[in-house]
């Protein structure tokens, strides 16, 4: 990726968070038909090399944008921010997650433990749903800002709002990353995955 080309540009989009998945799939397939190296094999190795780069850029972008959470991570990355990683517990839930971790280390053969893990699993499913809704809310506000900026031909006038949204996104992703790990562990313990 060269300077000024982010993953959104492969789809000729500004940095939006809410992208219609059906549109993305369809556009990806249509552009693949144009860009894939197999389409220009008869034109010789140089054309194939060019197509290889163009289609890898498209594929990389599709992968980065397809899932809404992955897309949000991509946005943070493009904006020069990093997430704290999925292994640091969210500060506002520290005590709670310590309890949960302890529970997941217990013997699931014990019926009471099993019931508790099942409850935890349901709790985490609920939180995952809540996180999706929280992401949707941030995405709406963010996209409105981006669209306004595109229309006015420059950056958003509301720089503080932009920073606030990115911060919110960052803590949402950090929390979700951690909880997803727990959710996976719970599923493994229960043998549902």
């Amino acid at each position: 990726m060269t300077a000024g080309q982010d993953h959104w540009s492969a789809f000729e989009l500004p940095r939006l968070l809410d992208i219609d998945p059906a549109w993305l799939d369809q556009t990806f397939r249509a552009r693949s038909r144009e860009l894939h190296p197999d389409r220009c094999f008869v034109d010789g190795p140089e054309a194939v090399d060019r197509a290889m780069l163009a289609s890898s850029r498209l594929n990389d972008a599709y992968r980065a944008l397809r899932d809404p959470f992955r897309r949000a991570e991509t946005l943070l990355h493009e904006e020069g921010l990093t997430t704290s990683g999925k292994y640091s517990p969210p500060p506002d839930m520290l005590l709670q997650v310590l309890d949960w971790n302890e529970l997941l280390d217990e013997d699931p053969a014990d019926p009471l433990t099993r019931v508790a893990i099942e409850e935890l699993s349901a709790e985490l499913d609920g939180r995952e749903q809540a996180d999706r809704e929280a992401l949707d809310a941030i995405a709406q506000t963010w996209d409105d800002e981006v669209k306004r900026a595109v229309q006015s031909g420059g950056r958003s006038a509301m720089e503080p709002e932009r920073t606030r949204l990115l911060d919110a996104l960052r803590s949402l992703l950090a929390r979700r990353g951690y909880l997803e790990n727990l959710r996976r562990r719970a599923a493994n313990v229960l043998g549902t995955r």
Partner: protein
Amino acid sequence: MPIEIKAHGAEPALPKGRVVGIDLGTTNSLVAWVGDDGRPSCVDGPGGRLVPSVVAFGEGGGRMAVGVAAADRLVIDPDRTVYSVKRLMGRSAEDVRDELKFLPYHVLREDVSRRTGAQIVRIDVDGHFFTPPELSAMVLRELKLRAEGAFGEPVTRAVITVPAYFNDAQRQATKDAGRIAGLEVLRIVNEPTAAALAYGLDKRHEGTIAVYDFGGGTFDVSILKVNDGLFEVLSTAGDTHLGGDDIDHVLMDRVLDRVREARGIDLAEDREAVQTIRKAVIAAKCALSFDEVTQITIALEGRLDVPLTLPLDRATFDGLAAPIIDRTIGPCQQAIADARLSPAQIDEVILVGGSTRIPLVRRRVEEVFGKPAHCELDPDEVVALGAAVQADILTTGRRDMLLLDVTPLSLGIETMGDVVARIIHRNSTIPASATEEFTTWVDGQTGVVIHVLQGEREFVKDCRSLARFTIQIPPMPAGLPRIAVTFLIDANGILHVTGRDVRTGHEHTIEVRPSYGLTDDEVEKMLLDAFENAEADLDARMFVEARTEAESVLAALDKALRDTAAEELSSIERAEIQSRIARLRATLEGTGHQAVRDALALLNRATHHLAELMMDSALKEALRNKRLQAALEEKDELDDAQEAIASAHRFHGLER
């Protein structure tokens, strides 16, 4: 070498001529092409469309035969007959240690290239060493010859298939084999994907499909979305060391145990016996795909003069094979989960590979996916047919079909604490790339070492090392240099590495050292060797063909001489025949095909009268019977007469 740095320059435009699709299998290989009608078909040859992936050498490591003729030598000369080479492609001696107990050509030696440190195994045949790509090249050359024979023109370009789960080194080794065989490999295609292409030619097979590919040595499962000519692989999983061979090994162990119990002899170390048993259990396995019960009969001169017969019914077979077949279920579930689907969302299941003929395999597949599987196309041929379709897509541009495949394994780089940082995840659509920036940690540091790995595990020791290389940096204060390294997995699933100096924007030269496999120079050398040996190879091949013919003539003649018709031969005639037989046998000890042909012609002349006598007596016999027997049996008798005449022709039919 497994890593290719951008190597394209001003290459000539693609030459004309037919392009073939090749399924280079563990047990059998096939070559296919697309005709003017746009339909793919496999090229036929002596012994059918399947070419056994077997290379037989003569004494002293001279090349003898490939394919059907070589497969015949598995039992006679197991030490010098090499099969299942695919299991060794792109691997180190340590990787293949477990395989060795079943391979009679067990002399394997590891070589480490002094220049690059790359590891590769070599197979020792009477002091001659061959790498797996060289041996595969011999099979590929046989397929190339077969195709050239069918088309009457040279074949120089091919699409070759590999198991979807092959890693970078295994793919590169396959590409190297193609080059050594004199083939430009236009594309490496994943076997299950190729199968989907063959099925997808007719629009009935659209939607979400699963391809279950269980062959001789490998297992793959891929989930694809097929829509309007676009074949998008969603996920793939598999095991490059799981196949019908493993079922054979279980059966062989059982037979060896029974021989020990019943006769008190241990044949496990007797290579010839092991190959005889292998042949017998494979026959039994195949029979049980149709029959409920069969028997394995083992007769071995000097060890089991009284043949040992073991009954085997399907229930017992299923019990023995189940643990192996069940190992395919995990990857199936993994692939379904990775595609983010449930079994119910998969519209169709396609069966590929000879092992899918086993009824228990079909039952298991049906259980996993909840629906019966398709097998309208021959499971042995479907991969080669798909490879031919891909060759056609690439070279004619006339098809509105496109294949979007994925990389089966994650690509990572070593970071601190021997941990692998994944930069391209498995099941990413290819071509795929990732760019990482590297800098220096201490002032004046002139190099940054990068270790590239493939695999899903967290630690370096559990992943497959692909390559190591050093980025050369002019001495500068720590942290000042910024080198962006781009890792690109191309449409073949093979890695390319390029570097760029971020501050200056200049291309940065990177010399990549592969961890396994051959270097470009070595491949070039083998290509030259192959050309130099082409004539010797052709001679050896013609000798084998002449010998095969001579052996069948001698067998037929031996039978004829014991026939009553032969009693009418004069003693002079008889002596003449005997002396010419001796002469022919003597030529078989040599290596020249011309001597065999000459001796055959002489023998042929000497047996002229015998052939006439045989035909005469056969006709007389038939006529006499015709008069005596009821009209109902007439046809049978005539068939017998024809058979007798044909038999006479068999040892005397060489004038044609």
